[in-house]
């Protein structure tokens, strides 16, 4: 029990990052039936974009800004216009497969144009420890957690408190009706793609200092985000957030208490159980079915 607090904080910190990725994943599914199998690679790429800018001699803060802008351009606008738009009308599956191919392409491109080796990545949170309730907790974990929570609160506020947010929710729930009541559906869908790009860029910025920048690092992340989105509820922002936090904590605890070999199995088993017994997710609403 001695390091339970450490494990919880570390788990919540990674979980908060998973939550960011899961929320983006879920928004894409909701507004445009896109199951993005490249979501993990979407998190992997921005770190390399930022590194590339830094290699060109720019300072870290400029690299972050340019990295986020490039992510919005490539992973938001480019992804939507070049891949999703042409394929959407052909149903869910071909598009999902195309995103799998995209994941391979992104990994290979980073490997080829950057490096196959892991690169270190500067942290925006200073290293060091602080003392809470007499326990030493990593400042990095706390910083990541605080930042992720701030983003999640900001996003929830955007969705629930602003008229743009309401229009996005209407688009997600029923595009046909939304269009009739005058919501600019196309613009809202584009906005969700941009939000997703922003979230993955942020997640990239937060997680890369912990796990290093590597072309293959998206595989595990992407899977964690899927699991988080489903466990929490595929159709609710707060569900995806809760799912992300839960998976982060479960992952860290099972690494410590189950076995390092099978730590990855615990979230998967959780996923299977949830899908079988509560397919709408812990916080989700049942999806409407048409016979």
């Amino acid at each position: 029990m001695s390091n339970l607090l450490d494990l919880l904080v570390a788990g919540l910190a990674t979980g908060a990052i998973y939550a960011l990725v899961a929320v983006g994943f879920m928004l894409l599914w909701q507004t445009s039936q896109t199951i993005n199998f490249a979501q993990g690679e979407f998190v992997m790429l921005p770190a390399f974009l930022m590194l590339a800018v830094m290699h060109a001699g720019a300072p870290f803060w400029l690299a972050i800004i340019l990295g986020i802008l490039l992510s919005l351009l490539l992973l938001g606008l480019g992804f939507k216009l070049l891949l999703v738009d042409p394929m959407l009308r052909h149903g869910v599956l071909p598009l999902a497969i195309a995103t799998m191919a995209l994941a391979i392409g992104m990994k290979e491109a980073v490997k080829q144009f950057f490096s196959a080796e892991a690169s270190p990545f500067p942290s925006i949170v200073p290293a060091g420890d602080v003392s809470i309730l007499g326990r030493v907790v990593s400042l990095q974990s706390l910083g990541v957690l605080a930042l992720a929570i701030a983003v999640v609160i900001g996003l929830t506020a955007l969705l629930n408190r602003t008229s743009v947010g309401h229009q996005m929710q209407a688009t997600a729930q029923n595009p046909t009706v939304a269009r009739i009541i005058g919501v600019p559906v196309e613009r809202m869908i584009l906005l969700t793609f941009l939000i997703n790009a922003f979230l993955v860029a942020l997640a990239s910025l937060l997680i890369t200092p912990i796990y290093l920048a590597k072309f293959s690092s998206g595989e595990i992340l992407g899977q964690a985000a899927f699991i988080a989105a489903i466990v929490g509820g595929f159709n609710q922002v707060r569900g995806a957030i809760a799912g992300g936090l839960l998976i982060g904590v479960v992952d860290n605890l099972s690494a410590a208490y189950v076995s390092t070999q099978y730590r990855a199995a615990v979230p998967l088993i959780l996923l299977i159980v949830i899908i079988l017994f509560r397919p709408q997710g812990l916080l989700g609403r049942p999806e409407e079915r048409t016979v």
Partner: protein
Amino acid sequence: MTATGKYLRIALGVVVIAALIIVPMNFNRYGLFILSQWAVMTIAAMGLNLTLGYAGQVSLAQGAFVGIGAYAAAIMTTQGLPLVAALGVAIVLCFAIGWILGYPALRVQHHYLAFVTLAFSTLAFLVFRNEDWLTKGIYGISNIPRPNVLGFATNRPLPFYYFCLGSLALVSLAMWWLIRSPWGRAFVALRENPVRALSLGIDTRRYTLMAFAIGSALGGVAGTLYAPLTQYIDPVPFNLSLSLDLLMMVIVGGSGFFFGPFLGAMIAVLLPEWLRFTQGYYLMLYAVAVMLLLIYSPTGILGSLDRYLAERRTKAASALRAVAKSRLETAP
């Protein structure tokens, strides 16, 4: 189908089969390895095509079944047991596990089913990696022998290629029989309209489970060929990306078309090799090619071909009608 069309098809089939037998005779070791791999992956993709293409059930676990088959073959044949015994074990094991994995399909559909099978796939990978006593973990199993088939040793690449090709032929015949049988019709009914299928007395539960079980068993068959092909296996090739690759093969080739997996496996196995001359770029180009292919023909190559032929037929028919009509009008 017209008579000439039928003869054309038969002629095409004969030419392709002859080419598959004759052309590789002077291939080098590597070329034969790649072609054998194509045959093995085609078998696995055919299994998935049954589950997904015919019966309409998404599965992201086919790679895990290839892994189960491969480990069964590797473990048993290195203990001196014949490959046929391993094949039997792999089929029974994969059939049973596939049957169990089909149960979630009775409760959930579509993306949920995809994620259950995805989770299974990753769990299987963890077992391959962690159960050292059985699978030798990350060190893998080496020196997997190649079988003697009807008294012929298949140690050399060419005989082993023929062994893979022969197996593919047998599996294809069995599959052809299956999809033309009442079962095949029931699978299609299950995919197209499960409610109506039920009302016609079709036990959709049993057929769903069968589609999973048989498709998975074919994954196991492919695995038992894969182990003696590479003669060394470790967990890495059987991770999630193999399942995703197999799914890609089925969709790209044309899901629900008999020859879809043959084409899909050709693209997934051979295209990267053809692109090798671009060195580090080959997988990237491959990914771009797959995306472009899917953008231009989302129903796969055979799906697009089918639509093209159907359109041409309608055009020809309406042209004929137009001619007949104009004749009637100009007739005195």
